[in-house]
Every structure is written in C-alpha cells, then in structure tokens.
C-alpha cells in the first residue's frame, strides 16, 4: 500500500515519519538503500524496497548494520547517493566502520539514519545514539515533524555531498513511527549517472592527523551552515522568562504544554534541528535574552550538556543562567518525553498548579487502575512454534537435571525470558550474545562448572552476529548446545527475508544459505527437528545435552505462524471435550492453561474446565499433545 513513489508534487498524504524519510530520499535521487531491520527504523528501507523496481533503486536487507553501511559506502564512492538505516543498537554494530568512514570521507551524498526507541517499546535498551555524531565529528540532524523528516532527508544528501562526509539523522519512535501530514515534492528525473570508482585516489583514513584535523574544521563550517538553517526555529516572546531548548519530538510536546498552562507569553521555545555541531551563534543570541533555560529532549542530556558547554565559553558575554533539565531532575533520566513531562517541569519552575483532572476523578481512576486492570504480559502468538520449542527444551533440561539454563540474544524468542519461555533464558544482551556466552560457559569445566548451557538464537540473528560466536565455540573446543529457532523470517520486525529464506529485498529468488551446512562446515554437529513434534524435539535436545564433546546445533524449523496464517487455512479445528477434561481435579496442575499458556486456550471459571477461544485459536493442534487426559481434540479441517 506504499504511496511514497507517487509523482504528485503538492499532494498531501498521511505518512509515517519513516515513510517521509523514504520519500525525502527519493526526492533527493537516492539510488542505493540498505539496512538490517530493527524497530523503529525498519519501514524506511521496507518502503524503498517496495518501490525499488518502479524507481530504479538497488535495495537490500544486509546481514548486519556494519555490512549495510559498507554497501551504502560503495555506492557513494561510485557517485551514487545512498541511504543506510538502522535502530539505535544497530549503530553500535556499524560504528566500527563509521569511525573510519568519517576520516575516509564520501563522494555522493550518504545519509545514515538511526531511529532510537525511548522507553524501549521494541528494544533491549533505550540508548541515545546522538553521542556517536560527536564521537565521529559528523553532522547530525533531528526532525521534529513529518514534513520536516522529508525536507531534512532531502537536504541531508546535499549537505553530505558538499562536506564530503556522511550525514547522520536521528529519528525517535514518536517521529519515525508516528504518522502525520506530508506534502510531496517533485521526484527528480533519472540522471542516468554511471557508477564509477576513481581509482586514482585511495579512500582510506590516511593521513590520519590531517584528516582528523579536517573533520574539526568541517565542524566550524557546519556551524555556519546550521546557523542559517530553517530547521532551527524560535517561537515565543523576545525576552522569555524561561527558554525551552528542544529537538525532535520535544518541539510539539513543548508547544502543547505551553498552551495547556497558558504560558505562551512567558516561555519561548527554541527548536534545534541541527543538533551536532550546535549552531553556536544563534544559541548564544537566544541565551543572552533569558535567565532560565529548560531542556526538553529524548533520551539523554545531549543538548543539555553541549549547550552548557557553550554557555561556559560565552559566560562573560551572556551572564549566568539557571539550567533546568535532567541534571536538575525537572525531567526524569529515563523514558520517552510527552507533554505531561514538560508541564510537570514548567509547573515546578513557575511554582504553579496544574490539574489535568479533578482530584475526585483521579481517585476513581486510580482505584480502577489498581483493582480492575489485569496486566497483559507479552507472550508468543497463538500457533507460534517458539512456544512448542521452549516446551520441549524445558522438558529436556528438567530430565537432564543438571541445573541447565539458556542464554539468548534479540528477536521474538527473547520473550522466553518471561513466562512465555518458562523463564529459561537467564542472560543475553546483543545480537549473537547467547552463543558467545555459551561458548564461554562451555570452557569453564576445568573450574568445576557442570551446568549445561543452551544458546537460543534466531535464524536472522544467526547470519547477523551468531556465526562468529559459533566458530569461536568450534575453534576453541567449547561444549555448547546452540538452538536455532528457524522460522523463515526476521519475524520481530515484520517478516523481512534473510539469507536463509531464498528471497531478497528486491523480491528476487536466490539460493538459500543452508544453516545446517554452514554449521557443519564450522565443525558443529547438527540436528534438525520440527518443533511441533514435541517428543522428537525433546529427544534431540536430550541427545545434544548428553553429548559432552564440541558444539551441537539443534535447528528447530517451522515457518512463523504470522506468515503461515496468511498463506494457509488452519489445519485443525480444536476443541476441549468437557466430558474428559477433569478441570481443577487434573493432577497436571492445568498444564494447558497454567503452564503451556497458549492464548488460544482459556479457563472457564463457571465449569472449572479448559476451553478453546475460537476467536484466538489458529488450529495448530500442539495443545492436543500437552493434555495428559487427552481431553483436547483436533479434527482436520
């Protein structure tokens, strides 16, 4: 349903921030687009992939973010504009090359977009990626509105080209993954440019000192350019009592807070779109006209620290200021911004009252919230193969009886750290971490370590970062059990294909990389199982756990139900026979609903028996095997 390639200048559309970025790239004449998927950034490249053919682009899902940046760089070196997108954690992966690429420089415009996830809605942390711009001495832009996301993207390519360096842009969940009005601009005609690498010139970091020096000279020039940028904007009185300095999502929240408090005549808002290097001249001008400054930004105190540094440099000219923000604890150190947080900070600064609702209403709402709202813990989808996989792994580890546990990385299966995976996952962190940790645990036997460790890994994660960890385990003779949950997609981010799937972002059929062949070539022993075969999977797990030598890989393979459900009808109609279900009297402690916990099952309080929720059940039939009384019945559809 993508509309980002509409050739209709002036037309106004509802676009997601990420779609606006993709459109901006098209309006700038981008040719090569790369990413590894990661919420909230995925939609940028996904949308560009959907118009790759019509717009004459090359788009790829790279195996990881560092490779994505390298592929985009090759295009830039050859004279083609390129965009590379990733989530905040992805920039950590790409940073190894980025910290050389800053010195190496680029040819055609290269925009690196990072989308951060304040409040970690879909992430393992809420890392602020902006310090990378400062670290790499590269320009950083932050859009505040959907329209601006498009305009800024377009401009970023020109800026990158003019300066000969990568331009960074940072979105956050509420700018990238929200939707708003965007008026389209013209799409450029194809320039038919031929890609070509000028081999008379070497592209590397040498001479390092000169190039590092040049990066800092660039920053001085960038400050001048930024001082004149329309992306930096002020609204409010000439001499505000309090000046809000903000960026990104804070721009709209701040305006709303002032309106709700009626403070529009007392407080000014200075929105900075060019957040590194800061446009010193205009910031100093604004600071000179106020005594008090409040910083509104997500998530760390990036503006706050950097503006204070400027205020110290120019203290003789602008005089002393009082600063409010995270350091003063007017704004919490964690979590995403909203208008209420801005209101709260201003209320304290102005010592004023603000009540969103009457105390009576608040009391009633609080009572309801405390007593009537069951939590909605995240679990696997109905019919998800991971539930079945975890079931068998749990049972195998119990039978093994050596206090075994599991390690993990990033993906749907990381939900296994909670009740969905019987709390089997004990430690993890980054992409591929589970296998790296297991490789380490597996070498501790000489120090008395005797617990089996199972490294849980996804199929896409395997290609991203787990392969080096498995090689490490094989090479260093570590005894590990690695489970690869192969569901034929990068499921967590919306089912993007990966090298094992047989299809790429351009929609081309490609020979799938066989995970088992890769593992065997490293020297690992490989077992393959269908997780819906509960007993067979448990036996294979036991076989792997009992083998004391080397790396054992158990591939649990079944297509993601979210994909399967779109392609196929449910295989079974499942029901509970109330005559057979013995309810609370069952000696199993309600394996079906209390332990297995598929959301397609429910507990009928009146009859005190299990039931199938026909709205939720997808008819996978796995629960039939769980019930010791055989009360759950599946009938072929």
């Amino acid at each position, binding site marked *: 349903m993508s509309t980002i390639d509409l050739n209709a200048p002036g037309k106004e559309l*509802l676009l997601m921030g990420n779609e606006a970025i993709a459109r901006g790239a098209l309006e700038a004449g981008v040719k090569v687009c790369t990413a590894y998927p990661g919420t909230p950034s995925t939609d940028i490249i996904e949308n560009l992939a959907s118009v790759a053919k019509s717009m004459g682009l090359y788009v790829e899902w790279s195996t990881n973010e560092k490779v994505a940046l390298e592929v985009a760089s090759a295009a830039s070196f050859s004279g083609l504009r390129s965009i590379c997108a990733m989530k905040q954690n992805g920039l950590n992966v790409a940073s190894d090359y980025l910290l050389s690429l800053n010195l190496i420089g680029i040819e055609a415009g290269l925009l690196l977009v990072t989308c951060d996830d304040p409040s970690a809605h879909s992430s393992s942390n809420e890392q602020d990626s902006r310090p990378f711009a400062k670290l790499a001495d590269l320009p950083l832009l932050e859009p505040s509105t959907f329209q601006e996301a498009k305009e800024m993207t377009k401009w970023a390519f020109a800026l990158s080209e003019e300066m000969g360096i990568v331009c960074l842009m940072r979105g956050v969940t509420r700018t990238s993954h929200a*939707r708003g009005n965007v008026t389209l601009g013209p799409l450029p005609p194809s320039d038919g440019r031929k890609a070509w690498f000028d081999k008379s010139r070497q592209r590397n970091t040498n001479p390092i000192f000169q190039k590092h020096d040049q990066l800092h000279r660039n920053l001085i020039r960038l400050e001048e350019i930024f001082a004149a940028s329309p992306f930096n904007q002020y609204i409010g009185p000439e001499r505000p009592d309090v000046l809000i300095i903000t960026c990104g999502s804070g721009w709209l929240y701040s*305006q709303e807070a002032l309106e709700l408090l009626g403070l529009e005549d007392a407080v000014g808002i200075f929105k900075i779109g060019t957040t590194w290097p800061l446009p010193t001249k205009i910031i100093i001008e604004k600071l000179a006209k106020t005594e008090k400054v409040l910083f509104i930004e997500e998530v760390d105190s990036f503006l706050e620290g950097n503006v204070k540094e400027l205020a110290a440099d120019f203290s003789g000219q602008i005089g002393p200021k009082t600063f409010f923000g995270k350091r003063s604890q007017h704004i919490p150190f964690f979590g995403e911004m*909203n208008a209420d947080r801005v209101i709260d900070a201003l209320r304290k600064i102005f010592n004023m009252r603000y009540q969103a609702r009457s105390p009576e209403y608040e009391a009633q709402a609080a009572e309801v919230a405390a007593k009537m709202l069951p939590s909605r*813990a995240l679990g696997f989808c109905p019919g998800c193969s991971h539930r079945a996989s975890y079931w068998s792994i749990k049972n195998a580890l119990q039978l093994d009886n050596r206090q075994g546990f599991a390690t993990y990385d990033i993906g749907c299966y990381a939900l296994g750290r909670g009740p*969905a995976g019987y709390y089997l996952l004990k430690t993890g962190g980054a992409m591929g971490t589970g296998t790296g940790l297991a490789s380490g645990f597996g070498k501790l036997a000489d120090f008395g370590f005797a617990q089996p460790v199972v490294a849980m890994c996804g199929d896409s994660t395997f290609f991203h970062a787990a392969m080096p960890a498995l090689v490490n385990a094989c090479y260093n003779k570590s005894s590990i059990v690695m489970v690869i949950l192969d569901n034929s997609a990068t499921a967590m981010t919306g089912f993007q294909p990966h090298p094992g799937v047989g299809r790429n972002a351009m929609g081309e059929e490609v020979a799938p990389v066989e995970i088992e062949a890769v593992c065997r070539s490293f020297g690992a022993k490989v077992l393959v199982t269908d997780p819906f075969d509960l007993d067979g999977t448990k036996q294979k797990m036991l076989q792997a756990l009992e083998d004391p030598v080397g790396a054992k890989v158990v591939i649990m393979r079944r297509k993601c139900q979210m994909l399967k459900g779109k392609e196929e009808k449910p295989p079974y109609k499942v029901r509970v026979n109330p005559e057979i279900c013995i309810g609370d009297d069952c000696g199993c402690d309600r394996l079906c*609903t209390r332990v297995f916990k598929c*959301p397609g*099952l*429910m507990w009928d309080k009146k009859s005190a028996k299990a039931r199938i929720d026909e709205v939720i059940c997808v008819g996978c039939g796995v629960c039939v095997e769980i019930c010791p009384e055989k009360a759950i019945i599946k009938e072929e559809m």
Partner: protein
Amino acid sequence: MNPQKDSYNLIITGVGGQGNVLSSQLIGQAFVHKGYFTTIGETYGASQRGGSVMSHIRISLKKQLSPLIPRGKADVIAALEPVEALRVLTHYGNPETVAIVNTRPIYPVDVIAGNEEYPELAEIKKSLETLSRKVYYVPATDRAMEMGSAILGNMIMIGALLELKLLPLRIEEFRHTLSKNFNDKRLETNLKALEEGSKIIQA
C-alpha cells in the same frame, strides 16, 4: 459534536492482532483528505504478541499536534476490548469522554494461567460509566464472527463510531477512503462490516 471545537483526540485501543493500527491509519487518511492536520501515535512494537495496543489519533484544522495525547485529554475512546477501554480511561479519560466499547474480552495470558482476575463485564461497565460521560456497547466480535471473521470487528467498531457523529467525519467520507485502500472482495466485506456497525447504533 461542538461546531466551535477545533481539535479532537481519539484513542483506538485493543490487543495485538485486532486490526487497531490499520483502523487508525484509515481514519487518519480520511481526515487528511478532509484537510485536517492529523497526527497518529501508535504503540505496536508488540502488536502481534498479546500486548495492549493503543493508537492516538489527533486532528486539528490549525496545527500539527504531538503524537501523544496529554493526560485526561481524550474526547473519544474506541475500544476493541473492554478492559483496554478501562485501561485507557484511567489515564486519558475525563468526565466528558465518550467511550464506544466492543464487549468481547480477550483474556491476558496471566488470566488464562489463573494468576490474575479478569473483572466481570458488569463491573467493567460500571467503572467505564463512572469515568466517562457516555458509553456505547457494541457486540463487534460476535457480529464479526457471524460475518465470517473476528478481524472484521474493527470495521464494525468504526461503523458504530462514525454513526455516533462524535467526530467531524461522515461515514460516506470513510467509505471513500476504504475504496481507495481495498480491492473487490476485501472492500465489499469491509463495507458490509462498516454498515453493520452503523446499524447497531441506529437500532
């Protein structure tokens, strides 16, 4: 609908897999088509995985509003699940908020497991009514199942919502948006569900 009112805050809430995100996107498109500044803030990172899903849809003729509604500022709440209506009201509701609620519960995993209680529908209704000006109940999932698929519950809810005329968007205008997004069979089914929702309110 107050003719003086410029901005409206609508929340569509429910559980992952109920079609919340698509509904908000379609409503948003219809408002942009009408010339409104429209902002949608969605939380759907875990949309397929049993979590609560909420979309804030904010419209104004004057300016682009932020993607998150401030505390207590929801005008209308359309809930695809009853407890989710209550959850949203406790934070975003006020005595003037109008709620329209699908009466079919989706039980959280911890309720299925017996660790937590799902309140009786009668209790939920009482609390919904305490925290709002008016509540409309729609058996959207039940009707959708009769029509062939639970997923149509979202379109039935939109039909009911628009029929209440709480927002400056007519059902004909929304039909136009649907026709631009769906083809043939899918369009026909969704239009029928929309119609069904509006009939429930008329009855």
